[in-house]
């Protein structure tokens, strides 16, 4: 799952490094694996073939032959080449020096045009523009309503004439409306159409002729398969594209269509849609799509999300602290908070095979009301300590304990318990720091370690938790385990 292409390529090259030379047949085998990876990512076959040809040339070069790890090097070459083809830098939206700037959105049915008209409008307004959205989709039932609803939500004006007039006429009159309304950007929503539907493609040409758009954006679903090439080529031939928006990138599509479209039209991919909300639009990052096409993308995104919770540097610092035994109560409560925030993240991780089961168990464990209460109580106790006390828990004598208990509204015995658990955990961490980390810790860079401590807090009676399993406390008879999901039929 993680680096299937790397693994396969390493398989191809295994045992060759000692030999000192790689035969053309080995390269051929390696290229077959690259081809398969690209096809599985929905890169068009024609694009794949020409891409492979370019890769092969570089791969037979000296570097790979004499390198220590040819498999990894081929992956690197492929990755670099992908970024190169996808366009090195992010290209901005064209704006006309003379207002208004006219943007026309085109694409197949269901690619996400209307939603992205709204997203673009919102983004442009944030940049100080006064956009006008124009409803030229008279085909799909309620498409006009959809745009009007979005306009109301965003408080952005929508120009519409219902579904009776022809779209080229509506677009033309919308220009006048924009001039009167003082709008400096006009975004035309058009009906979804098949690139082979001549009548509708002609209509699109007319809309273009009547409005002379500065920017004609093809909206492409990231899940599109081999057809992306035909679609992009034909739209480009008929109306001349200036850019592409790649939508539904929040799913698990590998997005090979991005490479195909870019390769056949040469038009830059300018944005990607990353969610259903109207603010879910981002500049296009070629490097990210490259790793995604190679099957490492989901992991990258996940790691990034995880890092928002568990900063890598921070995790390292934490591990250092654990080794030295200078892990204090502040770190402790910090980790508790992060684990709490992980709720939605664990859901996301749960969708990956392999990682799934463990994360689901953890999430279920954390979602019980008991766990919630325990967390807040622990947090309250620690927050009632002075900074000095948090860094140096050994300072806390009986009068401090009384004060802390009062401050957090708990019994002195609760404070005692927490401190005892903390000490046990610190000890555990010291030994762990020398030896091996628990499984979860390895995954989340320290989070699991804190999870272990958390488990310790919850099982108040045991002074010497023998398990470092973060779930230990919850597995033992706690309610709220995985909800039995009904399997249909």
């Amino acid at each position, binding site marked *: 799952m993680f680096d299937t292409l790397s693994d396969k390529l390493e398989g191809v090259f295994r045992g060759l490094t000692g030999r000192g030379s790689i035969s053309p047949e080995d390269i051929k085998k390696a290229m077959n694996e690259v081809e*398969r990876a690209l096809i599985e990512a929905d890169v068009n076959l024609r694009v794949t073939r020409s891409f492979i040809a370019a890769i092969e040339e570089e791969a037979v070069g000296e570097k790979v032959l004499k390198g220590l790890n040819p498999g990894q090097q081929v992956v690197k070459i492929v990755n670099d080449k992908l970024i190169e083809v996808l366009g090195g830098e992010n290209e901005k939206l064209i704006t006309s020096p003379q207002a208004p700037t006219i943007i026309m959105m085109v694409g197949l049915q269901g690619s996400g045009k209307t939603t992205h008209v709204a997203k673009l409008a919102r983004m442009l307004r944030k940049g100080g523009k006064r956009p006008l959205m124009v409803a030229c989709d008279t085909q799909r039932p309620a498409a006009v309503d959809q745009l009007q609803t979005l306009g109301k939500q965003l408080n952005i004006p929508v120009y519409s004439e219902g579904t009776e007039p022809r779209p080229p006429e509506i677009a033309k009159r919308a220009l006048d409306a924009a001039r009167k309304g003082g709008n400096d950007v006009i975004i035309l929503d058009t009906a979804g159409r098949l690139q082979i539907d001549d009548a509708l493609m002609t209509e699109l040409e007319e809309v273009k002729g009547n409005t002379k758009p500065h920017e004609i954006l093809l909206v492409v679903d990231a899940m599109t*398969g081999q057809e992306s090439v035909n679609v992009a080529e034909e739209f480009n031939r008929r109306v001349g594209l200036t850019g592409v928006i790649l939508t539904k990138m929040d799913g*698990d599509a590998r997005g090979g269509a991005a490479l195909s479209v870019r390769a056949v039209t040469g038009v830059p991919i300018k944005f990607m849609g990353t969610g259903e909300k109207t603010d879910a639009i981002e500049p296009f990052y070629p490097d990210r799509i490259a790793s995604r096409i190679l099957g490492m993308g989901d992991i990258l995104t996940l790691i990034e999300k995880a890092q928002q919770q568990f900063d890598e540097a921070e995790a390292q610092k934490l591990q250092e602290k654990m080794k030295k035994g200078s892990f204090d109560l502040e770190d402790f409560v910090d980790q508790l908070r992060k684990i709490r925030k992980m709720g939605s993240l664990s859901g996301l991780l749960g969708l990956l095979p392999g990682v799934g089961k463990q994360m689901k168990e953890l999430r279920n464990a954390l979602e019980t009301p008991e766990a919630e209460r325990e967390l807040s109580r622990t947090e309250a106790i620690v927050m009632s300590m002075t900074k000095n006390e948090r860094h140096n828990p050994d300072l806390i004598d009986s009068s401090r304990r009384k004060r802390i208990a009062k401050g957090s509204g708990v019994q002195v015995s609760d404070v005692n318990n927490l401190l005892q658990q903390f000490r046990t955990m610190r000890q555990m961490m010291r030994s762990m720091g020398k030896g091996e980390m628990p499984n979860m810790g390895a995954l989340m860079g320290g989070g699991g370690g804190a999870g272990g401590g958390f488990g310790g807090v919850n099982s108040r009676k045991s002074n010497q938790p023998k398990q470092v399993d973060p779930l230990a406390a919850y597995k033992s008879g706690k309610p709220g385990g995985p909800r039995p999901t009904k399997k249909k039929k």
Partner: protein
Amino acid sequence: MFNFFRRKKQEEAEIQERTREALEKTRTSGGGFLSRLFELDDITDQFWEDLKETLIKADLGYNLTEKLIQQSQKRTLDEDTTRSKDVERIFRGEMVRTLEEAQNKAQASVLANAEKEKQRREIERRNAEMERRRKDKVQVKKGTFQSPDAPPAAAVIPSAGVGAQGEKRPYVIMVVGVNGSGKTTSIAKLAQYYRNGGGSVVLGAADTFRAGAIDQLKIWGGRVGVPVIARAEGSDPASVAFDTVKYANDNGTDIVIIDTAGRLQTNFNLMEEMKRVERVIEKAQPGAPHEIVLVLDAVTGQNGLSQAKHFSNAVGIDGVILTKLDGTAKGGVAFAIANDMKIPIKYIGTGEKVGDFAEFEALAYVNALFEK
């Protein structure tokens, strides 16, 4: 399912014409894309390479493509032939087999479900009977007792059977899929399809998220002439589904079709929401939904497999509606889904009109691909 239809002659002709028209569109665009390959006398190595390319371009994916080719090559060797006619027959057979395996497996599970439903009804009937006996012994003795499980009048449409009290139960279909796959349009087509068969239909607008989705379904409902049950935008989709099933139960409607919001299969929260809609439908009527169909855009690439897997894990998918086949896309990933997961293609959509719709038939479809 067609066989259950009791239609007037005129209607029958009309439906056949529509189906033929719908298929015609796939023939002109996607159809025949395999035929050119076989326009040679003897099969060469180059032929297999060309075949592989053609299948990959049709989005069948690497694995299924290799499987089909290897099996065909093996059979070709077994039969010791290189004549293109033979190879065409062999390959055509392999494709049909892939699709029919899924179809047959689905059929078997439909039968198993029918059996389960029968048993459930039997228990319900017995309980009801016990109750009735206790209350009204005399009537039973006199022989005036009417078995509530008497077979329903010959079904004109898929029927969920009758309840313990003899009331008609609607057949509930839930339609799911990713954003923009064509759920709402497909629902209008399904509604028209069942209307043509003489059934009464009600639609539930449980896509309460996307702006304009409710209006879109209402417009289609108006065009097709079926009621649409809706609440305000942003309201709870499960409640809408519940209302719709209840409406059908109260009004004796034959078919309930529930529209749901488009959702990406990786969105944990939205997938949970969909599970909840299913649970609430089940609460509104035990045994429902009877059919959950995944709407798949023919232009979808290998991500279709991920869609089928995730939706299947969440709610269990009974079949696929393959939409937008009037374009140049061949929808090959639906073949891969049938091969990998044994989920059959049930219907195909071939345009924006309600009549651009047909029941999927493996043999007819594969034949269309070879048509010259």
